[in-house]
């Protein structure tokens, strides 16, 4: 049952082969056995899950089931879940029981999906290896000595290890696509504004976007359909009808114009990763796609721009964690300043503090023009590069990450090296475009991700391109050793 896709499980549920309760129990049991070594889940929500499963079963019996009804999923611990701890991977929120549901949570509940737990993540989504979590690192199911990527490392590992068929993530600079690549699964970051950010604890508001993890593009399409939509509670969500993302999955790729940015294949890209990506592109040629080289001349600005914009926004977004109303509060503060200093000093981890300090500096009087304003200008240039590129091509492809999963601790003492692991994904957030990562082979026995970048709101086109590739390859069906 664990190896079935969401689509297969949904069919089984509706045909009465098993109940959601049985399925959910099986997932919980598997998590109980396997997760102690993986550490992909912070909070298992067994009781609520079984109740939700029984509700889903009733709905299935009454014939009102949708594609997600009764399907167990794991939810990144960045989404508020009413009555359930929502930690954001931080000591700061270790005691925070959210009093309300995020819009994404509400929509998945409404679709009948069954949340089995909240997944591990880099603290406040700041990290690319899941090593900054207060709850400890997550192991990559393909090699327990390596990282699963981040920040949505727990969600990616849980799907790769077949604890759940699907999960949710958020992507600010690559936090869905990079762990999807490193864990050998499918991950989609939608267009900025496609999925509501209400109830999703903010890291960098202008970049954050929620999306699904799945093993197949088809499953990701169904998840996205339930997660997406305009939300009057989020001014940056876009008032635009949600498409049927599965509708166009069978479409031919004949004549699809794929652009390969020169800048994504240069120095810094691991040659074995490059080889896997080239092989994947050959498959696309066979499917009838036309592949051309393009240029995104301002690509080199992406990482520095991101590391001004994201910390600047986070320095302000994280000010509310002050020990006054919720979350961690230092014991016996001497006065107000002591309350602030110690609550934040003790509640936040090193990476979060580093980014708050960088962001505070970048916004300070006298530095604002040189950093924040300059970064906004660079961001516009990056965006314009993509807009020009999409006048020539339909989809942009390249590697998701410059290397396969690295070893635990390998980069954790060198932030800049760590930041460079998102070099191909960050520009997509700065431009607000949709992006995907799909399994595209192996290098040194570890999964390689192929990144697909689409024009605004062209998630369906990306999903179709991913789906067609998955019909002619089986990388996405590979199971990590030990998780059969």
């Amino acid at each position, binding site marked *: 049952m664990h190896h079935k896709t969401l689509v297969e499980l949904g069919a089984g549920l509706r045909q009465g082969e098993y109940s959601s309760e049985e399925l959910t129990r099986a997932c919980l049991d598997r998590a109980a056995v396997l997760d102690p070594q993986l550490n992909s889940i912070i909070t298992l929500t067994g009781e609520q899950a079984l109740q939700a499963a029984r509700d889903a079963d009733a709905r299935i019996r009454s014939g009102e089931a949708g594609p997600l009804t009764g399907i167990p999923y794991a939810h990144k611990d960045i989404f508020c879940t009413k009555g359930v701890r929502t930690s954001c991977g931080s000591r700061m929120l270790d005691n925070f029981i959210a009093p309300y549901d995020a819009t994404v949570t509400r929509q998945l509940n409404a679709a009948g999906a069954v949340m089995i737990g909240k997944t591990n993540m880099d603290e406040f989504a700041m990290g690319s290896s899941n090593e900054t979590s207060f709850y400890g690192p997550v192991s990559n199911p393909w090699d327990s000595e390596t990282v699963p990527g981040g920040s949505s490392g727990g969600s990616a590992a849980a799907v790769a290890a077949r604890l759940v068929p699907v999960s949710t993530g958020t992507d600010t600079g690559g936090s869905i696509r990079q762990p999807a690549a490193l864990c050998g699964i499918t991950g989609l970051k939608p267009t900025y504004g496609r999925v509501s950010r209400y109830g999703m604890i903010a890291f960098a508001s202008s970049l954050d976007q929620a999306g699904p993890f799945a093993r197949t593009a088809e499953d990701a399409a169904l998840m996205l359909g339930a997660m997406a939509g305009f939300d009057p509670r989020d001014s940056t969500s876009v008032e635009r009808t949600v498409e049927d993302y599965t509708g166009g999955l069978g479409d031919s790729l004949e004549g699809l114009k794929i652009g390969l940015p020169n800048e994504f294949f240069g120095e810094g890209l691991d040659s074995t990763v490059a080889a896997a990506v080239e092989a994947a592109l050959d498959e696309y040629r066979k499917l009838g796609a036309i592949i051309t080289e393009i240029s995104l001349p301002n690509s080199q600005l992406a990482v520095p721009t991101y590391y001004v914009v994201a910390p600047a926004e986070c320095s*302000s977004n994280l000010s*509310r964690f002050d020990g006054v109303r919720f979350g961690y509060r230092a014991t016996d503060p001497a006065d107000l300043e002591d309350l602030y200093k110690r609550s934040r000093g003790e509640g936040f981890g090193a990476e979060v503090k580093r980014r708050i300090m960088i962001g505070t500096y970048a916004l300070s009087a006298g530095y604002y023009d040189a950093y924040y304003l300059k970064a906004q200008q660079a961001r516009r240039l990056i965006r314009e590069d993509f807009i020009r590129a999409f006048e020539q091509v339909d989809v942009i492809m390249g590697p998701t990450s410059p290397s396969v999963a690295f070893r635990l601790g390998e980069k954790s003492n060198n932030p800049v090296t760590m930041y460079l692991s998102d070099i191909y994904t960050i520009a997509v957030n700065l431009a607000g475009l949709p992006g995907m990562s799909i399994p595209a082979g192996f290098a040194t026995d570890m999964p390689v991700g192929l990144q697909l970048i689409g024009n605004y709101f062209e998630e369906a086109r990306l999903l179709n391109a991913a789906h067609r590739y998955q019909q002619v390859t089986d990388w996405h069906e590979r199971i990590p050793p030990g998780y059969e």
Partner: protein
Amino acid sequence: MKWETVIGLEIHAQLATRSKIFSGASTRYGAEPNTQACAVDLGLPGVLPVLNAEVVRMAVKFGLATHSTVAPRSIFARKNYFYPDLPKGYQISQYELPIVHDGYLDIEVDEDTVKRIGITRAHLEEDAGKSLHEDFHGMTGIDLNRAGTPLLEIVSEPDMRSAREAVAYMKKIHSLVRYLGICDGNMQEGSFRCDANVSVRPQGQAALGTRAELKNINSFRFVEQAINYEVERQIAVLEGGGTVIQETRLFDADRHETRPMRSKEEANDYRYFPDPDLLPVEIEPAFIDAVRQTLPELPEVKKQRFMEDYGLSVYDAGVLTATRELGDYFETVVEACGGQGKLAANWVMGDLSGALNKAGLEIGASPVSADVLGGLLRRIEDGTISGKIAKQVFEALWAGAGSADEVIESQGLKQISDSSAIEGIIRDVLANSPKQVEQYRNGQEKVFGYFVGQVMKATQGKANPKQVNELLKKMINDA
């Protein structure tokens, strides 16, 4: 040395919306602490602000009423600082691109001088909560009911030259926002408050002196006191050879003085940047036109009209248009009394205002409605009662009697205008006062008043005074 005072005001007007600027929580004043603060107001993790469209409409109204530019595009920015009653650790405000800018308002400095005060900008922002230091031993209580209440911050040019001008400007803005219906103007509840930037410079010097910002002023009287105190303080510093330092000072209403805030409280770099959770506010000309259609008659226009239509003086027209309620009351009285503008003005500004002041009531709470007062004036006008009797009737109306006609009827106050009846009374008076008649005939004309008094006394004031005068003159001379 002669010193010149330079003042600019920053007025915070709380916009009279039902819900908050970025959440659906109620803005009602006086509820139990923290009962009107929703997840958004509390700044819970994950919540997002959504702009209340009504505040935009209100800001545009203000812009139109002050000859200002309504910005086609304005931006909300975050003002970052830590304070326990600021839930998010930042206040959402407008910084570089405010919604309204570059306008003006004319104020009357005295009866013949009008002065134009520039309005630099007016921007939208959210209010913070309240820190409560009483009732919590060694701790501070936080009430977030006020957090997220919409404010319009109105910043003037440094165009005022005295505390009096500052008060006149503040009163004018106060009147205007109430005319527009965008602020209830309640200063006790903090719906309308102001900070004053005050500096002095040698008369004739073009460059501005160093200013102090006076915070926390919530009455017209305090504005005057705070500025006057501050001006004297700065002059004393300068004349003593010192220099004024730029600082924020708090006005202490109990001691009538300003004192510096601790430097810690003001040493803030607010790290403003555009709020990524909110889209730019884009206002199209059609929206502005639609708002223009909803504008009430503005005080200036109404004042001109009162002068022209009712023949009122500048002063009277100014008083009667000071608030929309007073102007409306006045016009209802005029209509009810048959168009006697001057008479209505005299009564509204005289007896009625006097009684209201004495009772500490606003015009809206007047026990005598405009229709009832108009009915009274109609009876003066048609000669049913004299002005003096009218005062007596007014007192009855104030005490709760129904209408002037009822009072006149039940108390028998109808004026005696029957010549033969008045003649009879005069005859009796003259017959009973031979000594006074003698005096009058000997040239002591002031005795005339004595006869009038006697006639009025005999008729309990009901005789038509004009007729009494005429008939008395004739009869004394004839007698």
